[in-house]
């Protein structure tokens, strides 16, 4: 059974718009059959892209789902064989659902755009 470890920086109940400014991350593991194994939230003492990268390496994360990320950290994580799905916009739940169905891509906007003027 294959298992993947995912990290999502959060801003409230949404994917954080900035990787470097996130102070809360959610980590979970998912099997190739779509069942969740591990589920935890980590609160960082302060926002720092370096510390977040360190956490990602220490936790042996396979995939990150985030908003904006600087090229420097994006390339570093790629080099460390971490899959980065960046510029993702949406709530945590909608992102998880889409990811577990295997359809989430970088740049996806999962947002209810119903708009009342």
């Amino acid at each position, binding site marked *: 059974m294959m298992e993947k470890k995912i990290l999502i920086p959060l801003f409230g109940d*949404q994917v954080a718009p900035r*990787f470097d400014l996130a102070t809360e991350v959610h980590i979970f593991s998912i099997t190739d059959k779509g069942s969740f194994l591990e589920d935890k939230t980590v609160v960082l003492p302060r926002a720092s892209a370096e510390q977040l990268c360190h956490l990602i390496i220490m936790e042996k994360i396979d995939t990150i789902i985030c908003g*904006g990320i600087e090229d420097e950290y994006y390339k570093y994580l790629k080099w460390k064989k971490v899959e980065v799905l960046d510029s993702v916009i949406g709530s945590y739940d*909608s992102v998880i659902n889409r990811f577990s169905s295997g359809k989430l891509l970088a740049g996806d*906007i999962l947002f209810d755009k119903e708009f009342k003027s």
Partner: protein
Amino acid sequence: MILNTSYQLPINAQIKGLFDFPVDLPTLVDEIPLGIIIFDINQRIVLVNRAFEALSGFCAAQALGIPCFNIMRSRLCVHKCPIKGLDPNSEPVCIESDLINKERQLIPVLINLSPIKNNRGELTGFMETVEDLRPLREANATTSQAYGFGHLIGKSRAMSKIFQTLPLLAQSDSAILITGETGTGKDVLAEAIHQASNRAKGQFVKINCGALPETLLESELFGHRKGAFTGAVENKPGRFRLAHNGTLFLTEIGDLSLSLQVKLLSFLDDKVVYPLGSTKGFQANVRVIAATHRNLERMVKEGSFRNDLMFRLHVVGFHLPPLRERGDDIRLILDHFLNIFSSRFGKDIKGLSKKTLQILLDYSYPGNIRELRNIIEYAANICPKGQIRPTHLPAYLSEPELHYNFESSTKEEKPVWASSPIETRKEKTTQKTWSALEKDMIIEALLKARGRRNRAAAILGWGRSTLWRKIKQHEIDV
């Protein structure tokens, strides 16, 4: 992939009443070379222009209907969203920040946010302009001088210390008090601080507190309402309001009357300006920089300047040393002005002759940099080509008795806070001018000659009358 795209592009948004026929708003804003986002009161984006699309990497179809922080991705959105404190009557907010675009670039930006009211005065949304600061930063990096800040140059110890602290202090919003003799560059320093600050895109408003009568100055500074006094036929915003999101430079603050000092004090406390004849205050986001050539500490002791105001203004203090205490800077500034004026007047001037240079280095410059600049401008005008000779200099420079005696008149003007006692003592011994040295030489010779002037003149190699004239010039009591 975009889900639930029930939102329609505002292709029908039009401006009516401006021209004979309605004009499409998206087409109009697309022509503006500054990123523009308009969003509703729920902070969902309703319009972005082409410049913003280029800056952020998000196209309008992706951005519309999305909460702004997801698209803007600026530091402000996460830390302190400026929209939170805005109401329909709020003034625009101008803040420097950064954003990460879709190409994963971190871009420094200047954000200007203003509320949008409908015709009933209700808040209906917000408009944000986003300016890319990268070209400005690059330009600053290439033009920055090793021995300078803004238009100020110098490599003396005192100036280097100022140049080191200036960039840091410019970033803060603290009030600054600049002291220094006339012509030392207080105005230039104030403007350089403004240009290096986050308020650089705002207005730099200067007002001379000594140039206007008290009543006029009050209206000029704080503004007035129509009908507040005879002749007040229109509302006047006042300099504080004009400097909103920028810097207000109060020069000659020492000449401010006591009653206006109280009003200024009250502004520095609560940052609210009350125009004359108005009960409604205006929250002004203004940084105050004050300057004076007067000794405010002495004025406080004399009761002509408020102690509490001095301490509020003097959060950060800069003392610009007089030119005579700046050692090698004279040569540096001299060459700088010579380059400027020879190219401005289109003359082929090949520097200064040895004697001219000696005269200029020996002079005491009571008018400081302004005087040096005037001397060089005069010389560059007079000199036809080649080297500048002593004959090209203003006549008073070659007549020592015409030199202004700065020693007695300006030394006590230097405020106590300006420099440490150790520093002052060091400067006195290492950076003496010819005038001070000459005085010491005369006293030394008189001591050796035990007060006999004939003998002292012989020791100095001067005639008796020259010695008498110099004793009188230096006010030596024999």
